[in-house]
Each structure stands twice: as structure tokens, then as C-alpha cells.
């Protein structure tokens, strides 16, 4: 039977059957009495269906027919395809970005079994903490959920590569334990990875190169393995080169080299939480099980080491999911907004189809009179809608291929995702599948409108001569409901954009606490033994900096700081002299950094009390600190802190005297409250990464070259990163809001345009249908103004209903945006009011044009037209 059916697919077989059937029916017609056999065409049609492939040929016929019908109305076709292209294009663009970022798989085998392990302090969220090397040693022996565990110093740092006769260069690298590569499932391309004994300081002068570094700096020399290169001025043996597809990055940019962890003396302290732990789960162990085991492990640490690990816990999370909470919120918000844009596009096309369906009522009525079933009509109309949707979707993909490139360009700087290198936004199979499915869903959605319209209309009404509903009929209520929904959707998108714009303007009005204009910042890694306790690795760094860089013409001030504002921070506990000693658990603490003299002057951070660091603060002179206003408020609310002293790191730590109070800087971001912060002079306390800041008296791109040249004079072996203007750093710190703001603004322009088009279409159409009614009204004495008001009020009634619904929806979207908003509530009356008025104005304008036309109708011509 199946074989027969399949045979029927062959055109020759089918032709044979068709001829046979035609002859048979013709013969029967001659035998029977006239009309006795009924509708033979229908009988043949049903007989064909027995063979099972009629749907295929009728589908082909429907597509052909639909195509011809669409081409006959180029105006309708263009409007519908363009509208759909905007809707599908915007969605495909956003999806392609999500596909290339958040959904991008990590470049490691079985990456869903990779987890990050944390020690926790206090309740979440955000209670994840780094762990110390002794914690890691315990973890390795005491847990069973993991196949392998490794540690690395989270984001790593810059390493200085130097060689005779070559420019020194700073590249980013990470200290890793021996199993690091095995955890990731990565094998070296050349040589080997680290051995367990190389974790110790005596054997740690070895390095593994990334493919990129090996190719660029070492000319793809395969003999590099075993050779010695200079890293931070010391000889390191190259033991391996990683393959091209191995990319490890934490937050920014792939790392270029790896060195063994080489435990230092400070690493042996359990309190020195400076490592991140990564592990591969045992097969069959879930993340939830690992989390439980880590919690137990953490609380055991807390009991065992009540001083260092008081109140500790532990947790685990997938490597792939790490750091995506913020991105997820952005993704949800954008998907909602862009989904609404698509719905508006759907509504518009549904409206277009309804208007077109009205002019096709006669055609459909004739088809039904000839015996077509309702289902058959619905199928044909849906086929046409799907055809339109696929055409629109194709145009949308073309649009997306262009706009995703543009978006990537805008997104590029300041967008950092953990673990993922985003270097392009491809239109791959996933994106195309997404666009296709979306188009089909869209087609079904807007295709339902004409189907409902067609099936509700009776067979005989449209065929009556001159038959029409001369006033607003039932179909028009559907159309007006579509206007209402369109306005509501547009309002939600608009207010999303409005809330983001208001957040951004609130954010921009926050005084950062420093003057970022004409300040260049660049990073340099300096040799440093112990980070919190040791003397500076370069004792004359600050003096040399001031002398050499300060001497460049046009430089107003030059200094350096351990943590650049809007970058990372460190924290440190202390005891306040003259107050009862606190226990380790509730020891006071604050954000901590180091700075060279003149730092506050360079950044134009006001000194409110006392003084800032100067070159007289040396290792021989008493220890000093400068605190920020927040710290003064927190610890010396009613006293003058200048002259007070603290014990750094605990009661037996060095005694440091407060010599100055500086103005608050929003160093953790403009949207974060200012935390207490204190700084020590670099001349008294070292730090391994320093940010050189140079204030110039005018903006010029040539300063960097001069600064680099000056640096070479006193630090010939150390390389410096590219200079970045402080204004860019400040701007990038707001990137997480800038991107959704720009996108939501773009979507709202599209939404507004589509809504205006939709409203204008519906009102125009209803005026056309009511021509006769309006003519009679005017013949009976209505003036132009009356008709104008009638049309306008008729339309605005539905618009206002949409606005009311939209306000409710906007508040919902605002809740979803949550932390994306800054000092704006989702119910902000200014934002909601402004966008409502804007949308109402646009709707009024869109109704004005057809209302004018109605008012100018000539009643005599209208009625004679009948």
C-alpha cells in the first residue's frame, strides 16, 4: 500500500491515474441520468485524497496561488515584508548576539562538568570568596565529588617579557597548580604541562606559552621548548606550548602564558585567600551534590580554624554559568522588549491582512459556494501568511546580518564576559533556525486574523450586489482591539527605554569624585615579594616617575596607584588604636590600596583635611595613611581622624597614622555607594601592579609615546600596557547599562514607527469603509469638524485603552529590569507620563491624517458613487 502511495508521487504514474479517472467518470456520466451522480469534480478530488498526496499538490498550488496574489499587490507585499523584516530582524540580531556570547560553549571537552569552587563567608548572594593554598590542599584530600581539582590566581597579572635587543613587552599570565590543564582536559601542542613538584618555589621557573604568543613573539619556533626566556627579568624555561584552540581567559582577554603556582611564604598562611579553585566533577556527580560537599567542607574549615575561617562555608557553580547573572538580566530585558517589537509587527501585518481579506471576501465566498470547506479556505489563507512570513523572515535575516555586525561594533569595548572570547557574531545554524521558527510562528499568529475574518463571513452576504456593512461592523472591533494591543506593547518598550535613559542620566549626574578629563592611565607590573606586608619592590619608583614623566612638557602631574578607580579593589582589616581590641570575626576593615605622592593632585581628588603623601614618607619615617570621607564618617564620626592611628592587619601589625582625609571617589562604580577606603604610600608598602596616571594640561594623543620613552629611561626591563584615557575608563564602567539603553532606544523608535503605521492603517481603512455613512451624515447636516471629531475620538478611545494596559505592562518590565535601573522606580511617573504623552501624540498624528480626509469628503460624490 505504501509502495503504491509512493509510486503515485511519480508524475508519470499520477498522470496515468488522472487520465484513467477522468475517462471512468466521463463514461459513468454518459451511463447515468443527467445530474444523478452529483458533483463529479468533488468526487474526483476526494478520490485523489485517497492516494494521500493531494495535500502536497494542493500545498504547491496554494503557494503558487498565494505568490501570484501577493505579487498582484506590490504595495501590500512591500509593507508587510518590511514590517516583518524589522520585527524578525531585530529579534534575530539580539539572538545572534546571545548565541555568540552567553550561549557560546566553553572551549573545553565536557565543559558542563567543570565547576568553580568557592569558600563562602556569610549569606549569599555574592558571598563567594577565594581560598588559600592550605584550603586547596585540604580540599584535594577531603572531597570526593571531583575527578581533579586545581587552583589559579584568579585573573592573573601582567608579566614582563624581555630579551636582549628586543622591546620589552607586558603579557597577561596566570599562576596555576600542576593539574590545571588536566582539569580543563587540555593537552599541550608542544612539550608538556607542569609537574606536581614544580608547584614548589625551587622548581617554579618554568613557563607554558599560548599559541598566539608562541607564534607572534617566538616566530612559531618549535625548538622553543627547553629554551630559556626572561620573565620579569628572571630566567624561565619554556616547557610547553598550548594548541591554537585552547583559550583561557577569566574576565578580559585570553591569557598568554602560564607559570607554576610556586607557593611563596605568604601562600602558606591560611588567611591568605588569593586563589580560585576549578575542578572537574566525577562522572555522575551533579553540581548540587558538589555544592553540598563544598558546604560541608567549608563549615569544617570554620570549626577547625576559628580565627582565619570563622563562619566559613563553601559552594560550587558551573564554570559556564559563572559571572552571567548580570548578563542574564540584560538578556531577559532585551528579549522581552524585542519580542514586543515583533508582536507589534505581527499586529500590523494582521491589520494589513484583515484589510486585504475584506477585498477578497467575494473571492472566498465564491470558493465556498463552489464547495471548498472552511478548513480548506483556512489552509490556503495560512499558507499565504506563512509564505509572507518566510519572505519577511528572509529579509529579516539579511537585516540581522548587517545589524549584528553594527551591534558588535558598538558592544565591542567594555563588554566583558567571563571565560568567553567574543570576536565575532556569526549567523550560524542556530541563528538561522531561530529566525525560521520565529518567522513561522509569526506567520501563524498574524495569519489567524484573516482566517477568523473569512470564516465568520457568510457565503451569501458578500455575493449580494452592493452588499457591505456600511457602518462599523464586527470585523472592525477586532481591528481596533489590535490597535489597543499595539499601543500597549509599544508603551512597554518605550518606557523600558525611558527608564534606562533616566537611569543613565541619573548616573551621569553622579559626581565621580575626581576629574577624569586629560588623565591617561597605564598599567605596569612591578616585582613585589609580599603584597600586604613587604617593602616596595622598586624603592625609587615614585620619585623616578615624578622626575622623568613630570618633566615632559605639558604634563601637569604624574603619579601611580595600586587600584585604579572603577577597576578592582582589595580589602584589609585593622585595629583602631585606643579602642578595645576586636576579635578576628568583627575586626574593622575597609578597601585598601597604595599610591605614590601627588596621586590625589593628579586625579584632582580634594584633600579635605591634612595632607596627601609626599616623598618624605619613606621606610624610615612613621607609617601614614590617607583615608576617604566615608571611612572618616564610619570610624571617626564625631572626631577629627587626622592624627589618629590604626594597627594594619591586626593589633600586632604596623602602626599607621592618618595624615589626611580625601574626598569620596565612586571607585566601585558610579552606581555603587562609596565604601570606606584607606591608602598607604607606595614608598612604604609595595603592590605588584601599579597604574600610572598622568594629568596633562591639554588633550593630545602624543603623550603616550613621550611617557613610554620616559619610562624606558628608568625602568628599561618593564613593559607598560597601552594608555587609556580616564574618561574612557569611566565610560566603560557604565557599559553594562549603556548597551541595553542604546538597544532599548533603538527598539522604541521601531516600536513607535510600527505603532504609528498600524494606527494610521486601521483608521484610514475604517474611514474608507464608512465613506457612505459619513456621506449621509454630511448630507444630513454634519459639518467637517463633526466628522473629524467623530473619527478622531473613535480612534483615540482605543489608543487610550492601550495606554492604560501599557502602563501596567511597563511596571512589569521595570520589575524585570531590577538592578539595571539606577535611582528610578519602575513606577516613575515622569518616565511613564512622558512616554504615554509621546505615544498619544504619535497616535493622534497617525489618526489626524485619515480624519482630515474624512472631514474633506464631498457628500454628493460619496453618495453618487453608489
Amino acid at each position, binding site marked *: *500500500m505504501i509502495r503504491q502511495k509512493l509510486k503515485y508521487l511519480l508524475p508519470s504514474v499520477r498522470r496515468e491515474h488522472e487520465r*484513467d479517472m477522468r475517462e471512468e467518470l466521463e463514461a459513468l456520466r454518459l*451511463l447515468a441520468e443527467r445530474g444523478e451522480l452529483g*458533483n463529479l469534480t468533488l468526487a474526483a478530488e476526494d478520490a485523489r485524497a485517497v492516494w494521500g498526496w493531494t495535500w502536497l499538490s494542493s500545498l504547491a498550488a496554494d503557494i503558487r496561488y498565494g505568490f501570484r496574489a501577493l505579487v498582484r499587490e506590490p504595495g501590500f507585499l512591500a509593507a508587510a515584508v518590511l514590517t516583518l523584516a524589522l520585527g524578525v530582524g531585530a529579534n534575530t540580531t539580539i539572538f545572534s548576539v546571545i548565541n555568540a556570547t552567553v550561549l557560546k560553549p566553553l572551549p573545553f571537552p565536557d565543559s558542563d562538568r567543570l565547576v568553580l569552587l568557592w569558600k563562602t563567608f556569610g549569606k549569599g548572594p555574592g558571598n563567594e570568596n577565594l581560598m588559600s593554598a592550605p584550603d586547596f590542599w585540604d580540599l584535594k584530600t577531603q572531597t570526593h565529588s571531583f575527578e581533579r581539582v586545581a587552583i589559579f590566581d584568579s585573573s592573573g597579572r601582567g608579566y614582563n617579557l624581555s630579551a636582549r635587543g628586543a622591546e620589552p613587552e607586558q603579557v597577561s599570565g596566570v599562576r596555576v597548580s600542576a593539574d590545571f590543564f588536566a582539569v580543563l582536559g587540555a593537552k599541550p601542542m608542544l612539550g608538556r604541562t607542569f609537574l606536581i613538584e614544580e608547584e614548589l618555589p625551587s622548581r617554579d621557573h618554568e613557563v607554558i606559552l599560548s599559541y598566539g604568543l608562541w607564534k607572534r613573539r617566538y616566530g612559531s619556533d618549535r625548538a622553543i621548548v627547553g629554551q630559556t626566556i626572561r620573565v620579569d627579568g628572571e630566567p624561565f624555561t619554556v616547557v610547553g606550548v598550548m594548541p591554537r584552540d585552547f583559550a583561557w581567559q577569566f574576565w578580559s582577554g585570553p591569557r598568554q602564558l602560564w607559570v607554576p603556582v610556586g607557593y611563596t611564604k605568604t601562600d602558606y598562611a591560611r588567611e591568605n585567600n588569593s586563589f580560585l579553585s576549578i575542578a572537574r566533577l566525577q562522572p555522575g556527580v551533579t553540581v548540587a551534590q558538589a555544592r553540598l560537599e563544598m558546604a560541608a567542607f567549608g563549615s569544617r574549615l570554620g570549626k577547625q580554624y576559628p580565627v582565619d575561617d570563622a563562619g566559613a562555608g563553601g559552594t560550587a557553580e558551573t564554570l559556564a554559568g559563572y559571572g552571567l547573572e548580570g548578563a542574564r538580566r540584560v538578556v531577559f530585558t532585551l528579549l522581552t522588549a524585542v519580542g514586543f517589537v515583533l508582536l507589534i509587527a505581527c499586529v500590523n501585518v494582521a491589520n494589513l491582512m484583515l484589510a486585504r481579506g475584506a477585498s477578497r471576501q467575494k473571492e472566498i465566498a465564491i470558493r465556498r459556494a463552489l464547495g471548498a470547506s472552511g478548513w480548506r479556505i483556512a489552509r490556503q489563507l495560512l499558507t499565504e501568511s506563512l509564505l509572507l512570513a518566510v519572505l519577511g523572515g528572509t529579509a529579516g535575516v539579511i537585516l540581522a546580518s548587517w545589524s549584528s555586525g553594527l551591534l558588535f561594533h558598538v558592544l565591542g569595548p567594555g563588554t566583558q564576559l567571563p571565560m568567553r572570547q567574543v570576536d565575532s557574531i556569526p549567523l550560524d545554524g542556530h541563528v538561522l533556525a531561530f529566525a525560521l521558527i520565529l518567522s513561522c510562528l509569526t506567520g501563524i499568529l498574524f495569519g489567524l486574523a484573516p482566517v477568523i475574518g473569512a470564516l465568520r463571513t457568510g457565503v451569501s452576504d458578500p455575493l449580494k450586489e452592493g452588499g457591505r456593512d456600511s457602518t462599523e461592523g464586527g470585523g472592525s472591533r477586532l481591528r481596533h482591539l489590535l490597535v489597543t494591543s499595539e499601543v500597549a506593547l509599544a508603551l512597554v518598550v518605550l518606557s523600558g527605554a525611558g527608564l534606562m535613559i533616566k537611569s543613565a542620566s541619573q548616573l551621569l549626574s553622579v559626581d565621580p569624585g575626581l576629574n577624569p578629563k586629560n588623565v591617561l592611565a597605564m598599567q605596569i607590573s612591578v616585582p613585589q615579594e609580599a603584597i600586604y606586608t613587604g617593602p616596595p619592590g622598586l624603592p625609587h619608583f615614585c620619585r623616578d616617575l615624578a622626575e622623568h614623566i613630570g618633566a615632559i612638557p605639558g604634563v601637569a602631574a604624574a603619579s601611580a596607584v595600586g587600584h585604579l578607580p572603577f577597576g578592582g579593589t582589595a580589602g584589609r582589616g585593622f585595629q583602631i588604636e585606643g579602642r578595645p581590641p576586636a576579635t578576628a570575626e568583627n575586626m574593622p576593615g575597609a578597601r585598601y590600596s597604595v599610591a605614590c605622592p601627588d596621586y590625589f593632585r593628579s586625579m584632582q581628588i580634594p584633600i579635605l583635611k591634612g595632607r596627601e603623601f609626599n616623598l618624605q614618607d619613606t621606610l624610615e619615617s612613621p607609617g601614614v595613611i590617607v583615608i576617604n570621607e566615608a571611612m572618616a564618617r564610619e570610624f571617626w564620626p564625631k572626631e577629627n581622624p587626622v592624627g589618629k592611628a590604626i594597627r594594619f592587619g591586626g593589633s600586632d601589625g604596623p602602626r599607621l597614622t592618618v595624615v589626611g582625609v580625601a574626598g569620596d571617589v565612586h571607585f566601585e562604580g558610579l552606581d555603587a555607594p562609596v565604601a570606606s577606603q584607606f591608602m598607604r604610600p607606595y614608598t612604604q608598602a609595595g603592590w605588584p601592579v601599579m597604574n600610572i596616571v598622568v594629568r596633562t594640561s591639554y588633550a593630545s594623543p602624543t603623550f603616550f609615546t613621550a611617557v613610554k620613552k620616559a619610562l624606558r629611561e628608568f625602568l628599561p626591563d618593564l613593559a607598560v600596557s597601552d594608555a587609556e584615557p580616564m574618561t574612557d575608563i569611566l565610560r566603560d564602567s557604565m557599559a553594562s547599562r549603556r548597551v541595553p539603553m542604546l538597544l532599548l532606544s533603538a527598539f522604541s523608535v521601531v516600536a513607535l514607527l510600527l505603532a504609528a503605521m498600524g494606527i494610521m492603517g486601521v483608521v484610514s481603512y475604517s474611514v474608507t469603509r464608512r465613506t457612505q455613512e459619513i456621506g449621509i451624515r454630511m448630507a444630513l447636516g454634519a459639518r467637517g469638524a463633526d466628522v473629524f471629531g467623530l473619527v478622531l475620538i473613535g480612534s483615540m478611545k482605543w489608543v487610550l485603552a492601550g495606554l492604560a494596559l501599557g502602563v501596567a505592562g511597563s511596571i512589569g518590565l521595570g520589575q524585570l529590569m531590577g538592578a539595571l535601573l539606577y535611582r528610578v522606580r519602575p513606577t516613575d511617573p515622569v518616565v511613564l507620563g512622558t512616554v504615554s504623552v509621546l505615544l498619544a501624540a504619535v497616535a493622534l498624528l497617525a489618526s489626524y491624517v485619515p480624519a482630515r480626509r474624512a472631514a474633506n469628503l464631498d457628500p454628493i460624490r460619496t453618495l453618487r458613487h453608489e
Partner: protein
Amino acid sequence: MELLPGTLDMLVLRTLIFGPLHGYGIARAIRGTSKEALAIEFGSLYPALKRLEMKGWIASKWDTSELNRRAKFYRLTAAGRKHLTQEHSKWAEFVEAVTNVMGPVPVP
């Protein structure tokens, strides 16, 4: 009288038991034997013929009719005959069961 759903195939097979017939002949035969009680729409009979043919219960061939006109004649195949026997006994059981339940016509 409308046909009970699913009975048309059985009726067609039963009609062909006496020999080959063309489509119009089958329709006429059912109408005749049922004493005009069963109105067979040709529109549903014709697809039924195609369906039965595909299932292999009937076979068709062109031949000359009683009035010397060409027509397509359908005949019962061996498989069709077997199927009809099964259907027939099922039908008999069904009728008996329904009759048992319904009993004689109740007096109003």
C-alpha cells in the same frame, strides 16, 4: 436514510459478490436492493471504491457494458471476499446485540 458510518465499504463488497459492476452499477444496485431506502451519494461512493482498490479488496478493469458502452468494472478479489466474510459476521453480531437491547417498538 443516511448510512451508518463505516458501513459503505461493506455494502460495496457485498454488492460485488454476484459479479463485476461499474461505479454507477454499484450505486444503482445498493439503492435497488435496499428498496430505495439507502441513498448512496456517488461523491462518497467513488472515493470508497478507490480506497478498497488500494487495499486490494477489489480490482478493476475496463470492459464493455450491457449497452455496449465502455466502463470500468470492479470485481471482488480473494482478499476482499475473506474480508467481507469477517465483516459480515461482525455485522450480524452487532445487529443481534442492538436488537436484543432495543426489543420490540414500545407502545407510546
